[in-house]
């Protein structure tokens, strides 16, 4: 697993990335979470804050620098 992560980091060495699907959003590279509610989530990244608004947000996975959220996405904002 460690080897896989090392390879992944080596091949895909990004400071952050955000993946958006129909009802999922995956954010990598978060350094803080300002708000975590069912209708709004504010994630702090290195150079900006990432705001998601919608309905029935549910955290599926949460580690020290990434988050996977399920829910109905209505609005996405970047605040510098």
């Amino acid at each position, binding site marked *: 697993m460690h080897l896989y992560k090392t390879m992944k980091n080596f091949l895909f060495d990004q400071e952050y990335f955000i993946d958006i699907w129909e009802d999922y959003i995956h954010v990598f590279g978060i350094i*803080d*979470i300002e708000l*975590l*509610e069912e209708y709004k989530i504010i994630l702090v990244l290195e150079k900006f804050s990432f705001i998601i608004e919608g309905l029935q947000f549910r*955290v599926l*996975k*949460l*580690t020290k620098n990434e988050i996977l959220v399920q829910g109905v996405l209505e609005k996405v904002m970047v605040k510098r």
Partner: protein
Amino acid sequence: MNSFLWIEIDAKQKSRFLLKCFKCKIPIYETYEEKNCFFFRILDKDYAKIKKFWFIKAKVKEETGFLKIKKEILHHHIFLIALLLGIFFLFFLSHMIVDVKVVHSNKEIRELLEAALQEKGIKKNSLRKSYEEIEQIKKEILNQYPSKLEWIEIERTGMKYIVRVEERKIENKEEEKTSCHIVATKDGIIKDLIYSKGVSLVKVNDVVKKGDILISGIIKKDEEERNIVCASGNVFAEVWYQVSASVPMEYEELIKTGKKRYNIRFQNSYYDDFIFKSRLNQYVEEKKEFLNVLGQRFFLVTQYEVRSEKKKYTESEALERALNEVLEKINSTLSEKEEIIDKKVLKKEINNSTMNIEVFVALKESIGEVQEFVKEMENE
């Protein structure tokens, strides 16, 4: 190996809890909600940290990974131990040899081979050998007895070794002697004479000395040498010996006190001892086998307590004992047609609780020995 825990908390506190987890760097691998409860999966090592969060009441719902395996093992430990023991026992039995059978009509060969096999570790109640070991043992035994064994095959049938052997038959190429006498090896009086070749030079009741020719290989007629053969036959003569022996005048006799105890003796090829500690200091025992499972033998032992008492032989008893000892010793050296003719005690004396005797013994003993001679020398 990572172990995970599924934890259950109140769904109302989930946002606060998730933020706290993020701050404390506790990774959450999976979540779901059900009836106002929030379930999440974490590493078991993080559970201690979560328990410290005062605003939630965490409850372990399920264990996964190594912890689950450990729990299952502990839960079914009796079954697992029995299974392992069963497998071990099966393995042990399938590698066990309970009998070794040597197939051959000659008892001497059978005994010889059984002893050799035992020495090499092929014996009852032992573990079976590998193919390479068997081959090595076969080779070693054949090298050990090159003149007796031609071929060996060790075949395993179930828990038995069947050993087939072929005896080596070497033709007796002993050179036939063409000219020999039968001469006396001892002084004596001739008592019996049986011969198939040659000419007898002595008759019954003749006194002969060591080296005298008894049966000659030279056949003469009217003082003229007609033929030369190798004399053969058996000549028995009365010979005399003086034998001494000594026996102690005192002996120890074991007398039963009437007390008896029962015990069980366990015996196999590695172990032979009582199961219970014997409570008698000195005893004689009688044993009876009551169970024998795969060479594991159990005996019911009756122990009779005895005390030893020092006793003294009378002079006549000691003399009889000493005489018997002498006769037994002589008898063990005699062959089938040899016998003791007469015996007489020459001297007896008692010294330091020991009786010393000297006995004169007359024996009927074979005294003839084949001796070759050279024809030319005889003619001269």
